[in-house]
């Protein structure tokens, strides 16, 4: 596996497509247990990301990921903005000096990103936040020598679906306590789109 600048752009474009297509779905998930802006926030942010990275030429992966981070930070807002922003900022730092990432470098970058999310948001696994998707994905990378795209997609999908039956302890949904059970966590769904897209980008990169 090898992801260079083109492959990362492909990853982000796929993510953007899924987010734009599911903007209303994400918003309706957030209306059920949050404040109904997650789709709007992610759609605005990723649209800007694509605008930025497709109009800039990059020599380094770190620069690309830093632009993604800064765009998300300054355009998404809410809780998800600083979290996704921090995640990409950590990834950018993690890949500094590299022209492309192999499996190990990607694993390190994702782990750094997860740690950034945990530090920034102070959520724990099981709090019904996007941490519940990022954690098993990072685990999956750690436990497998080779990343099979379908498995990555499956792991992130299962993780996303698992947020339905738990009670929220962080984010707005936490105010609902028991009433948050039975609803998917919107941020976990957007994170699922991110990893499902990563799986596709990995697969296409190998073809």
């Amino acid at each position, binding site marked *: 596996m090898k992801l260079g600048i083109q492959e990362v752009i492909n990853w982000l474009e796929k993510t953007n497509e899924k987010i734009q297509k599911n903007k209303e779905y994400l918003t309706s998930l957030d209306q059920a247990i949050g404040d*109904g802006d997650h789709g709007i926030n992610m759609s605005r942010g990723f649209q800007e990301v694509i605008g930025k990275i497709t109009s800039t030429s990059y020599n380094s992966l770190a620069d690309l990921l830093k632009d993604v981070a800064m765009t998300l930070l300054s355009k998404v*807002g809410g*809780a*998800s903005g600083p979290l996704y922003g921090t995640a990409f900022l950590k990834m950018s730092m993690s890949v500094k000096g590299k022209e492309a990432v192999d499996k190990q470098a990607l694993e390190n970058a994702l782990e750094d990103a997860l740690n950034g999310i945990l530090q920034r948001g102070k959520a724990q696994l099981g709090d019904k936040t996007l941490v519940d998707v990022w954690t098993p994905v990072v685990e999956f990378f750690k436990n497998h020598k080779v990343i099979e795209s379908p498995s990555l997609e499956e792991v992130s999908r299962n993780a996303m679906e698992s947020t339905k039956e738990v009670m929220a302890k962080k984010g707005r949904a936490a105010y609902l306590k028991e*009433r948050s059970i039975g609803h998917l966590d919107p941020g976990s769904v957007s994170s699922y789109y991110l990893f499902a897209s990563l799986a596709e980008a990995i697969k296409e990169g190998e073809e």
Partner: protein
Amino acid sequence: MKKIINDPNLVVQDMLKGLVSAYPNSFKQVPNTTVIVRKDAPATGKVGLVSGGGSGHEPAHAGYVGKGMLDAAVCGEVFTSPTPDQVYEAIKAVDGGAGVFLIIKNYTGDVMNFEMAAELAQADGIEVEQVIVNDDVAVEDSSFTTGRRGIAGTIFVHKIAGAKAEAGGSLQDVKTIAEKVVANVRSMGMALSPCTVPAAGKPSFELADNEMEVGMGIHGEPGTERKAITTADEIATELTQKILDDMHLSNGDEVAVMVNGLGSTPEMELYIVNGKVNDILKEKGINIYKTFVGEYMTSLEMAGCSVTLLKLDDELKELLNAESQAPAFRN
């Protein structure tokens, strides 16, 4: 969705234009931002006060920018905390050398975005302190979760911390008094109808004709309980009692009362609620020093109200009474 707007994605930008043109002598907008600051900012030697959050809570927070209250308000997208770069611009715009104080409502997004901005400003050598407002007793105050939300009680923090800063208080003085307000202010709200975020185009939740939502937030988040709608007296009693259960006020204590409308509740109804809140407090021997009835912290066109009690001492009373030139809070 029926709204008097142009492009639903540009409501904040359009609002800011109308806001600045309404008060050209009091406000200016930091160019290319959604930050509203006092025309005379930065005030040299004065602690600069910055608040903000998602838009849709008008007059919060730009309406509280003015002499004696805030120096800047950062206006995020509707119900979405503003981004760190915007908050950072606000901090820079109001830094008069005595440090900048951030008043943050306790939402994960606000806390993270404001803290990232504070880190950026501190890296520039600006002293930044903050308070996190969490007055909503609907939500359990637990350290395992996000904790309580910040709602209408925030206005009292703006007012009192603003007066302290205006009187020449240091950054630490402002922080101390703001924390005192936060420790002594409690609120609780209820809604009769949801609101619609312009870019979402449909209501945030649905309520049957005979239902109300108790303990909901100010962002269209569902509340803690949904039940059959009752009378104004019962609603006032429930909200006030929930606050009193948490506050331990005793006979002879003095409070400020705020009955806040969430957007589409007629003032008539707010006064009806206030009448009952008054009765309840009087019955308990609690003295009402000052009452505020009106729309202070709204949730677009949500119907409903919140009640806020602030326990006062002489210091808080003096600061509450100090001059304010903010359009939405004239004293």
